């Protein structure tokens, strides 16, 4: 296996909330900046030699930064499909990136909370992540890296339009700030669809993490800004933060409502999920993700003495296809994945029970 991937697999995923403000509802905060180097065409129109030069320029510039001086520098062509999936499942690269046929690369720091995709849609997609709701501190780290990089390359920039990007939807600040939220109580009280519509009407994008539209797998949603031009970076973050806080407030109210008025519904939802996870022998990704969501809700509401957020977070990553394969050590068919997935979860939950009895 590619050395870098091997090392990455050994690290814990930094952006899953074990800690961080509002960690029970806000899982991850993420900000990315789109940047392009002056004098080159955008990746869709650039020649191969240019793309190679761009990677070299970026790799060199990162050696002059604080945060990425020591980092994994990987060429996409050196990764097989399995290794590419690992990166995608850890949310370090996008789906578009791993199917890229042209010369592209990625730079990742050891903590996996800072990275640069090279030659995806733009020359550089710089990204910083952290657990919980922490947009300001994520921005601080990202801004610093952006400034350091610009000391060693000329970004395509216009006084009126700001940073010039391959797609006009990113022009200006080039900033997409997003927060991944876990909203199980809002779903149980049938408030998700209207809430999503409300947030969209205010000019924010809402996407299911694993699904499309308003029905999301695992009750996970990502809310991000749509406009990138016409306001400062700090203002984008400030407003997004306020929206997120309001949504969190509504999820909290829904949880209290369930606790006070629909306790059996709540207990049933969590109890069934635990039952399935603890005893199933065949678990597809969908059922596992939804059950883990209910488990997480139960943990948040203090229903468990042994299951903790740490375990739930680990499982969220582990049940994905490439990670399962890595755990098993061999390639797996769909059916085998369902078996291994159930096996891992059963084992980990059984382990907790045993520890509790001791």
């Amino acid at each position, binding site marked *: 296996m590619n050395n870098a991937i091997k090392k990455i697999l050994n690290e814990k995923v930094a952006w899953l909330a074990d800690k961080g403000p509002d960690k029970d509802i806000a899982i991850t905060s993420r900000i990315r900046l789109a940047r392009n180097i002056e004098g080159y065409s955008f990746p869709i129109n650039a020649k191969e030699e240019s793309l190679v030069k761009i990677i070299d320029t970026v790799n060199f510039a990162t050696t002059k930064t604080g945060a990425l001086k020591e980092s994994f520098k990987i060429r996409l062509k050196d990764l097989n499909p399995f290794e590419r999936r690992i990166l995608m499942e850890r949310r370090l690269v996008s789906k578009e990136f791993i199917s890229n046929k042209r010369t592209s690369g990625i730079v990742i720091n050891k903590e996996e909370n800072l990275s640069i995709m090279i030659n995806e849609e733009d020359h550089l997609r710089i990204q910083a992540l952290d657990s919980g709701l922490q947009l300001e501190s994520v921005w601080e780290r990202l801004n610093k890296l952006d400034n350091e990089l610009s000391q060693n390359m000329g970004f395509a920039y216009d006084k009126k339009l700001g940073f010039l990007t391959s797609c006009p939807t990113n022009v200006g600040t080039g900033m997409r700030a997003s927060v991944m939220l876990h909203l199980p109580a809002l779903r149980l009280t049938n408030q998700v669809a209207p809430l999503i519509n409300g947030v969209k009407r205010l000019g*924010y994008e809402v996407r299911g993490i694993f699904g499309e539209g308003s029905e999301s797998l695992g009750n996970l949603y990502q809310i991000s800004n749509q406009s990138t031009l016409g306001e*400062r970076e700090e203002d984008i973050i400030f407003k997004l933060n306020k929206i997120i806080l309001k949504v969190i407030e509504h999820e909290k109210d829904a949880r209290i409502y369930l606790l006070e008025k629909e306790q059996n519904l709540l207990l049933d939802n969590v109890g069934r999920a635990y039952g399935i996870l603890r005893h199933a022998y065949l678990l597809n990704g969908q059922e596992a993700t939804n059950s883990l969501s209910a488990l997480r809700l139960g943990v948040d509401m203090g229903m468990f003495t042994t299951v903790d957020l740490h375990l739930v977070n680990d499982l969220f990553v582990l049940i994905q296809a490439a990670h399962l394969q890595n755990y098993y050590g061999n390639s797996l068919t769909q059916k085998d994945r369902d078996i291994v997935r159930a096996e891992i979860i059963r084992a980990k939950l059984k382990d907790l029970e045993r520890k509790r009895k001791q």
Partner: protein
Amino acid sequence: MLCEICNKNEATIHIKEMSLNGEGKTLHICAGCSDKKNEFASMLKDVNLNDLVKQIANDFKGLIDGGMGGMLEQEVAFGDDKIDITCKDCKWTWKKFRKYTRLGCPKCYDAFEKELISGIKSIHNGVNHKGKIPGERGNDFNKKSNFYFQLTALQDLLKEAVKSEDYENAATYRDEISELKKKLGEHE
């Protein structure tokens, strides 16, 4: 009490609705009707939600200028695809842009300036860049102007909260304002 929809079963689900003007209404329904009439429930939630939207929109009066909520489809935003222009630097054409929704190079923004501007206007909250310049450090000056913006925003929110008699939020905003003022004082 009996379910308000079927008037047959015991009502076990009680959905409370609060509207902006303070009126409360509780709907009492049974589990069967709740399941069957999920669309009814979510219609109700739509009503609830209009209030939520109004509330959030009020909070942001003045902070969101111009930008319409929701992104228009790029095809609609960027209009006519029969225009025949080519970027002289990279040879990318407007037709190609419409096909891939990608430009060819930074200079395309000059070549297609007129055609792009209306689309940009409908997608974004403004047409002029107000953010950082390349290499601009997050220095003290930026931090100070950041505080001033937040202060104005919070003062707006406080005014609205007091006007709508939302004293709980008003108190929160008032506290945040005095926090900020203290921080500002440290920076001067």
